[in-house]
């Protein structure tokens, strides 16, 4: 009986721990844990609020926390949701689990990154880029400059991209499907595969294989490209679709986004955090971090190596609401095509 008694005592101790004081703010955060933790710690220090942060894993690509917010809707736990992209935030808005807010600190962010109804604001973005090896100068003509180059067999044979099942690649091709049409997009993938393009399971993964020399180039995000360059590999990045024609498509820019969860219990702390996270200082911090997030505040100077949209590259124009509306259906279609 003694072991059982010990076990029961420990269970009681755990239960007593359950009665601990709840946090002042419950934050659901999909941005990389290592990146967001110092920012959240600084907020706690400055404001005196105690934050209970719940993270997502990268392989869930934010959907874990989004589904959790939807499942918890009857008894909401989160006050603020900080997403590392935008489409899933818009999905939450469409599901009616967010409420509008206003943050004065977000005034320097361009209007296209504000929800007209005040449910979300975008900030600190990543761009979709080509990462290529610089130690093969004879093959530079095989590094694509436009999406249609992906379909050329000699280019496709030495390149890779993530299958568009999750994350920014799914968002990217969901946006393109808005412009091209769903059937044309599927055909594009079939042609790319026939041309010899390799598909990996994530952006970081194709970056790793390019960095290690398996491919000449890959289609990835600026934060992954920055990690390869910082770690001392012979690689560089290039923006796509910057051509000289009358209306080039431009490079897709995917911002972080924040929203306030409806019926959150800690309104005051939530407002303080929204002001903090949307400030120019936060963007400055993220721009100087290992993931080199692109600042959107006009007042923030981009550090060396971080391109400024509109100055260093042409960003793509995006109808985010339309892209978010079609993303689930397209994810299912891409799953049929790639998971076999």
């Amino acid at each position, binding site marked *: 009986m003694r072991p059982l008694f010990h076990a029961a005592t420990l*269970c009681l101790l755990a239960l007593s721990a359950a009665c601990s004081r*709840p946090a002042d703010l419950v934050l659901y955060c999909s941005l990389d844990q290592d990146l967001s933790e110092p920012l959240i710690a600084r907020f706690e220090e400055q404001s005196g609020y105690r934050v209970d942060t719940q993270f997502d894993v990268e392989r869930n690509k934010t*959907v874990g926390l989004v589904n*959790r917010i939807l499942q918890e809707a009857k008894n909401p736990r989160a006050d603020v949701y900080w997403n590392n992209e935008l489409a899933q935030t818009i999905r939450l808005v469409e599901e009616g689990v967010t409420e509008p807010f206003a943050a004065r600190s977000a005034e320097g962010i361009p209007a296209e990154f504000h929800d007209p109804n005040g449910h979300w604001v975008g900030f600190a973005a990543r761009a979709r880029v080509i990462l290529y090896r610089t130690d093969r100068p004879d093959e530079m003509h095989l590094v694509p400059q436009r999406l249609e180059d992906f379909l050329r067999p000699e280019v496709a044979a030495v390149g890779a991209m993530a*299958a568009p099942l999750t994350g920014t690649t799914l968002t990217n091709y969901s946006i393109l499907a808005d412009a091209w049409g769903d059937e044309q997009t599927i055909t594009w993938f079939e042609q790319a595969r026939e041309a010899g393009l390799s598909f990996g399971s994530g952006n970081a993964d194709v970056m790793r294989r390019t*960095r290690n020399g398996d491919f000449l180039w890959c289609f990835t995000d600026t934060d992954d490209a920055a990690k390869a360059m910082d770690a001392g590999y012979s690689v560089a990045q290039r923006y796509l679709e910057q051509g000289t024609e009358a209306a080039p498509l431009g490079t897709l820019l995917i911002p972080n986004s924040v929203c306030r969860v409806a019926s959150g219990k800690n309104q005051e702390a939530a407002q303080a955090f929204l002001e903090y996270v949307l400030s120019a200082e936060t963007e400055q911090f993220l721009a100087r971090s290992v993931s080199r997030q692109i600042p959107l505040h006009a007042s923030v100077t981009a550090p060396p190596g971080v391109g400024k949209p509109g100055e260093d590259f042409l960003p793509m124009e995006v109808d985010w609401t339309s892209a978010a509306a079609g993303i689930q259906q397209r994810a299912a279609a891409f*799953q049929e095509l790639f998971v076999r």
Partner: protein
Amino acid sequence: MRVLATVVTLIAAWLPLMPVLAPLIDLPKLADVLDARTAGLLWQSLWMSAGSALGAILLGGSFALLTVPFVFPGSGFLKLCLPLPLFLPPLMTAQAWFGLTGMSGPWATVFTFAVCYAPLPGLLVARALSLRPASSSASAELLGPGFARGELLRLSILPAITGGALVFLLAAADFAVPDYFATVGELFHVYAAEIFGHSRSDDAFAGATASLPLVLLCLLVLAGAVVLREKQRVQEVDAKDAAGPRLLGGRASTLALSLGLALLTLLFLLPLGRILWETGMQGPESTRSWMEVSGQAFQDAVTRGRGDILRTLGYSGLAGLICLAIAPIWAHALLQGSRRRRILLTIGLALPLLVPSVAMGFGAIVVFNQPWLDGFYRSIFLPALLVAGRFLPLAVILLAERMARVSATGEEAAALSGMSYARRLFRIRLAPQRGAWLLAGGLVLAFGMRELDFAILLPAANRSAAVRYYNALHFSRDNFVAAYGIVMALILFLPWVLAAAWGNLRQGRRP
């Protein structure tokens, strides 16, 4: 006590499954879920899991066949090391073997699972061999070495298959390892990817619906294994009638030691060594030394990840304790009653292991996210219960196998003399198997430390060691990942190694 065990199991294992069970028992949906594409994925999972099980049987079975029936210098140490590969996260082993050999694709996945889970059939074979009847063993040896070897193999087959079935279940449900090998080489998919894809859709339980074919397949394998285990039961003898190990000398002893060390190197030392080397790995243009990078990685692992490791140890340890309390009760129940009852009980207990982990997590949200359960929902008690509920079957099966060693006649005599159920269970049946009891709790702790998919959905488990590990892996923090994996593994190994060393020391002091 049986009521207590049933209540705890109900809360920990069966209640969170309630919201998932509706799509799972909707068999007509099977036709909607299965088409040519998903059948292809299911086939891929089937052969890969079967291959992993076969590999684990070969590796783990060989290890047990070498270290249990024979005594040679180092055999005791090797026997103690048998469970160690279970404490290494499979993803870490996958990274290590990719780094060592550059292997990728489905066969690399099969190899990794075989290496990681080899101790499961190994432990069951070891137990069966230590229970082989002295009389038949002596007769076989009299007939010649060929007969003796045949006898050992014959006794190993059924427990090896039972262990292989457990490996099959764990390999079939794993998404991370095949995803990793698809990432570093040619893209391929297993059925778990289909479940994972659906788990990311609007409907949080779509993953459970999609898992139906795999759950049925696993149920079939499990039922087969349970029936085989029942068959094996009649071959067992009491420990006092079991044959002792045979002393090996000369070249045979050197050969056995070399083989044992080779197996230990393959299963454990090589992957661990490679990961250690990866803590200081850098690109060719880097100006920092290996020591500098590795030291920084370990420093980061301890400073950034310490809180997560302690939190994970907290709820996984509590889960281990819960299993220490209730697993013996269920294991005892598995040794009694009719054959049909035992089969149904095993399947009932194993159900949480068959359902996708992420569906169990969403089930827990639906059931436990209530305003009146606020404190409990935020506490570490919730993840502890869920970890206990999910991995209880592993503890129960292991313990049942070990408790069967203890003669039932002693317990029957104690019952006739009026001894209570609790005393009979803990003093007569369990006391001689204290090591296995602790190992069962330790296994639950180890599996709890590795759990990701439902841990991330629960407030108190969200900031866990597994979450930090997987995030760092996906964000290419290779040095940190390697150092953090080693820190996690050391935390799991150390108590095991110390307990084993202490046990050996005490045994050595006995007259």
